[in-house]
């Protein structure tokens, strides 16, 4: 079966700095891929190439076997790839439903389409349904986002991406700023996404999170892919050794695991 996302031999440099060297990435249907590496290893750059923020110097991206070229995040979003930003993507002064529908508000036409007013009720119902599907408990979609906990905010951000009919959700350090009890909820959320046929790329420094939800783990070091491991066949020690360079490469288990 054709993987959902296949990035082939992606290279990207910024002036003299080679950020990515011939990196391959495979993401299968209903898979959670943990993406790990030290700071500056190229994780964010690789994701920015995937979402169209950067264009690669070399390499190709395939979505369901089709070659795609993303010139902006707008293109990748239309193709079903959503990036969930840690803190920046929500407006605290708007309520939950307002954030989920920000930029694509539902409206009702009046006077034969002459004026369009916001469909508050419709958006509230849709938002509630969406969060219910993700099994997120938020008292009311009328609550302002700034009154929510970090985990709930993360859930709202993911809910937003689901509303865009995402097939791939990229989460960049979703648990970094969370209390311990909140972390479990976000990890549940990731599992729920999988149940809804959404694949997830999880970037995290927290090894226990990566091991709890990932199906596969990909390791970057100095812009190069040095590890592609099935979670059940590896250990934290091995992954850490790959990240730090104590172990050279571990790419043998790559391809078809889905």
């Amino acid at each position: 079966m054709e993987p959902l996302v296949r990035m082939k031999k992606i290279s990207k440099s910024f002036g003299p700095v080679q950020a990515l060297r011939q990196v391959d990435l495979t993401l299968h249907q209903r898979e959670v891929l943990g993406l790990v590496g030290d700071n500056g290893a190229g994780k964010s750059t690789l994701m920015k190439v995937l979402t169209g923020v950067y264009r690669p110097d070399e390499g190709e991206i395939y979505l369901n076997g089709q070659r795609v070229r993303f010139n902006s995040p707008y293109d990748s979003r239309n193709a079903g790839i959503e990036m969930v930003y840690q803190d920046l993507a929500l407006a605290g002064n708007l309520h939950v439903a307002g954030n989920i529908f920000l930029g694509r508000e539902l409206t009702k036409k009046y006077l034969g389409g002459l004026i369009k007013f916001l469909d508050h009720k419709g958006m509230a119902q849709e938002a509630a349904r969406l969060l219910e599907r993700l099994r997120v408990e938020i008292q009311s979609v009328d609550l302002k986002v700034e009154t929510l906990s970090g985990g709930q905010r993360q859930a709202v951000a993911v809910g937003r991406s689901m509303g865009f009919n995402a097939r791939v959700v990229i989460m960049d350090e979703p648990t970094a700023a969370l209390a311990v009890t909140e972390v479990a909820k976000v990890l549940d959320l990731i599992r729920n996404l999988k149940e809804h046929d959404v694949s997830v790329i999880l970037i995290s420094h927290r090894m226990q999170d990566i091991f709890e939800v990932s199906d596969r783990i990909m390791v970057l070091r100095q812009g190069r892919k040095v590890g592609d491991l099935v979670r059940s066949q590896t250990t934290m020690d091995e992954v850490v050794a790959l990240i730090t360079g104590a172990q050279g490469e571990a790419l043998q288990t790559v391809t078809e695991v889905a």
Partner: protein
Amino acid sequence: MSTMARTVKTRRFSVGAVLDRFGIALALLLLMAILTILSPEYFLTRENLTNVAARIAFIALLSLGEFLVILTAGIDLSVGAVMGLSLIVLAWSSHHLYEWYAGWYYAGAGMAASLPPPEGPVVLTTISVLAIAATLGVGVLCGLLNGWGFTKLRLPHPFIMTLGMLNIARGAAFLISGGSPITGLPKAIRVFGAGNIRLFQFADGEWFKIPVSFVVILVFYFVFWVFLTQTKTGRHIYAVGGSPQAALYAGVDVDRVLNKVYMLAGLLAGVAGVMYAGRINSGTPKAARGGDELDAIAAVIIGGASFFGGRGTVMGTFIGVLILAFIRNGLNLLNVSVFWQEVAIGVIIITAAFVDVIRLRTGQRE
């Protein structure tokens, strides 16, 4: 696999929540109660309230525009000067339109040239409509330039662009008018600033009148309330004020929203100019000297809008305008010196801003 803990609670009604929602309205009622007690003969009379209602017209419109801008975490220092320029454009263009009409009449009239040109309602209304259109056009143009200075020239803060516009509009007002007032306006213009609507007759034979300007303000406030709470653009204005980054990521054209906001502030300054000119039946460049924008900012802040952006309501701004007007009016009735009035207003502005800071601190979670 663990499921999320169910923590469904009913909404709490706390004193804090009530104060947060209705605090400004309560403050207004308290102020009115105090003034009624201190000035029992005058404050709560028809004459006084009608007088206040008629006087707040232009400042209410400036405040509405300023409120939109402050919602986006910006500031517009030019609204007072743009209003002054609008005043002059209105008076100047209605005078010139009339002269042009008279010239055209005499050129065609030939021997009847000694008679004054007929001033039917059609002629004067047409002149008024054209002059008002030119005035609002100038307001919109100033607003658009303000927006572009921020969004296209990328000047560091709207403060700079609108400070520049303050000076430009003020200079233009004095250049066009030559520094002296242009008096005498068509009735169709005056009615907005000085007209009254007779509602019903009291037993003593006096009419209960509402200033036309007050009705105009109510209409504008209602329309902008609908605009801000019921339309996409209104929602986007709040979003841009709350987090420009989030709005951008969500696909909102942030620059476009900002341009619209400054344009509307300019438009409202133009409307304020029409009201002002109508009230004093003249266009005076003195109005462009400035200072009114500071009252507008004060009203917006007293009305509970946050300088950080994204917070505040149209209703709050209206109440802010009323509080400011009643303080001036009340202290006048009590014969308090104008200078003490300024001190009092200063204290109230600082208090209102401090309340906002406290509200933000308690309302947000880390």
